[in-house]
């Protein structure tokens, strides 16, 4: 404010000092968030370094056995990473198309009234505690999926002469399995995909739509060939963010997917979905529930946390970069 010598207009010293004090206090609140980040990094780094003093980093990254709590402990992170990937892939199959379709519907087709009902509903879908999703998957979804899906699918119908009978055996789901865990994680991230994508779709200016209509496009053409391509950066960034959320999802997969890490079976891919597995997050929860303070196993939890942190942070940064780099600017 007026500081250049206008003594009469200047606030007295006390008032200026008070202003400065408030400004500093508020800045301190904002700076606290930097401290939180620093705290997370330091906490993870400290124990991770100790951990890698005792377990080789190569062994950690390439080991195919994760058995920290039984017998001779082995710390190979690969089965946890593949377990996490499996769950994420299933959730992606559920959530990415569904989320995008919901976003297109909300942004291009739905009436204001439908939107007013759908958006809060989706918010509730995202707000249901993940522990309840896990319980839902374990107690209701798995039995349901087991009932709905046939155990054998005849690729060549039985009874056709000459041809040999060939049936494809679909293994039934175990109590803990990747499929139902992945499905509920998919449900959890649907609202994230749909809300961020919808923001991207609705920020495409109407002039583009009108121009396309003017050229004789149908609504279908406008939606799929004009609006969606124009919003690609936002959609991709919503995908990456949602997948990062799926990777970090903890309670639903801990309850529904179980706690026995498996390397993927490359022979029969479907078997991977029906059997028990373990994700990075679930392994952390398992150790936290079992281990007391100190020891290599305790430190391994932080190494897993570091892995998870790097993975999700990387994805979030990528999402942000995609959004900034490939954003179409309209004026």
């Amino acid at each position, binding site marked *: 404010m007026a500081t250049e010598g206008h003594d009469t207009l200047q606030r007295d010293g006390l008032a200026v000092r008070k*202003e400065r004090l408030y400004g500093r206090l508020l800045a301190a609140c904002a700076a606290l968030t930097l401290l939180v980040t620093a705290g997370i990094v330091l906490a993870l780094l400290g124990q991770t370094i100790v951990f890698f003093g005792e377990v080789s980093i190569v062994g950690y990254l390439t080991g195919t056995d994760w058995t920290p709590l039984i017998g001779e402990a082995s710390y190979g992170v690969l089965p946890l990473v593949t377990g996490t990937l499996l769950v994420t892939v299933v959730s992606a199959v559920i959530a990415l198309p569904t989320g995008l379709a919901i976003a297109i519907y909300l942004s291009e087709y739905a009436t204001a009234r439908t939107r007013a009902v759908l958006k809060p509903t989706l918010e509730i*879908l995202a707000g249901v505690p993940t522990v*309840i999703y896990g319980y839902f998957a374990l107690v209701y979804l798995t039995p349901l999926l087991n009932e709905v899906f046939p155990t054998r699918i005849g690729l060549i119908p039985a009874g056709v002469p000459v041809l040999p009978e060939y049936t494809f055996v679909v293994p039934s789901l175990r109590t803990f399995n990747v499929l139902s865990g992945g499905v509920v994680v998919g449900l959890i991230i649907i609202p994230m995909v749909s809300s961020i994508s919808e923001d991207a779709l609705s920020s495409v200016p109407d002039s583009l739509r009108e121009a396309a209509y003017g050229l004789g496009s*149908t609504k279908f053409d406008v939606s799929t060939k004009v609006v969606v391509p124009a919003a690609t950066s936002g959609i991709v960034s919503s995908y990456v963010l949602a997948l990062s959320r799926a990777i970090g999802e903890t309670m639903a997969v801990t309850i529904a997917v179980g706690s026995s890490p498996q390397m993927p079976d490359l022979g029969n891919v479907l078997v991977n979905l029906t059997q028990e597995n373990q994700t990075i997050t679930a392994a952390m929860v398992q150790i936290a529930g079992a281990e007391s303070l100190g020891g290599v196993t305790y430190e391994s939890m932080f190494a897993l946390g570091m892995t998870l*942190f790097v993975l999700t942070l990387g994805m979030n940064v990528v999402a942000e970069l995609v959004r900034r780099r490939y954003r179409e600017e309209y004026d």
Partner: protein
Amino acid sequence: MATDTEDTDWLSTDARLRWQRLKGRLFVGVLVLATLVGVLALAALFAYIGRDALGPFGAEPSWFLLYFGTAVTPIAAYTLYVTGRLRWLGDPHPDVRTVNDTAFAVVFGSLVLGLVVYAVATALAPEDVAIYVVCLSVPPLLVRGYARRYGETHFTGPGTPVSVLFGLGAGVVVAVTLGETLALLVDWLLFLVVVTLPAAALLGSLAVRRFSRRWGYLTSAAVLVLGPAGAIGGIVAGFDPALGVVLASGVLAPVGLLVADTVAHRRGGWPGLLGPVVLIGGVLVGATLERSLGITGLNSWLTPTLVFDSWSSTDPTAAGIYPQLVGSIIIVAVMAVMSFPVGVGAAIYLEEYAPETGWGGRLATVLDVNISNLAGVPSVVYGLLGLALFRNAFGLAPGLVITAGATLGLLILPIVIVAAQEALRSVPDELRQGSYGLGASRWQTVRNVVLPEALPGMLTGTILALGRAIGETAPLVMIGVAATRFSPPEGLFSGATALPLQIFASAGNAIPEYRTGVLAAASLVLLVTLLAMNATAILVRNRYENN
């Protein structure tokens, strides 16, 4: 497309156009289907959990008929009347709807708030709560009084928060020295301090604003009389006199003020007061008839045992979640106290203070990016932060209320900041410029112009974040919070417990009734709590958006 004229008829014979139309319809069909997947998944979740928790198939058809007659039909008819859809009754007075909304909010809001305060204060020891209520409210009130009496503002502005801190320190000292002596008092006397005094002050100041200074004093006096009267009522009727105090001064008094206010200022809106009466009365009449007619009701797991008893891992019918429920509420309160002021402060800095250019501007950009990255950090990693910070660095015991609250507070901090930023951004710049034009400083502008305008939005965002956090489980597991405790936490430094943790811990219980009954009911309680918080947030938003 429905308006087929001759022209389009001729066009639609074209196969290509027909294909185009089909394609469009299929596309919309797919989109609607996808949307339904989301909605139906949510419906299935609620349906399954509701079925197992409430057991509606165990009830006789006459049970449904009974409640349909006593509760559902009257409240439905009443709602239709209030919204003006029952034409033959005549249009309702325009005030009816406002009064009705306020009546529901006051009745159920004060009821829930009163019961929560009663449960939490009983768990934390009423004498401690009473001490802190007095110590935290008297110093700032003295400062305010001094400021008003002498018109002095230089030091009383910063003086208020400093006096609160002073009060906190004094509270600790008093609690240590006098706590045990005060514990000898009967509980209901302490609840007079915890509930009746604040209610008298609050309702009194409301009455001053709505009526006059004299009526304000009379209202306060009436509340102060109602408190002990409630205690006497409790003693006579044979329930906890402390609960009587809470119900009389915390629930009855605000409802009474609402009635008085309606009679005085919105006389035409009086039918709006009947809403809660119709609802509660209908349910009570239904319950009485159910008992006297001997109708088999719901085969529900959502019983008083579940809500008011402590856990049993061997007998499903004796399992309760009272300690976990109260523990969750206490954690949420700690979380709110920790994250709201800091989050709002950070948001104010970023939106109102941070320079746009230069080093300060760069710092603000870094802070913004940092906050959005923090929001993307998995919650389980926050658990590790809590573990390393509070257990390793500070050497606290595992799983304390204060650690749980602080860890979750850090977890929701970025969400609170972003919500507060949005609320601040929605305040029009004209208001700020008007304030500057009148000679106000930046802080005065923020304090007197921007904050009041942005507060509802901030509250909405914070309540939503708290609702999200009440279901957080992973960080609590990481910092070693115990799932099963047989009594609620007794203080900030006592072991915490939380409802979602109990659900997690018992999902693997071998007795099937846990999975298909107790846990469903516990999940339902958690879901209802969450929905209630969301509804509160939406109410706050709607109420202030309309004004």
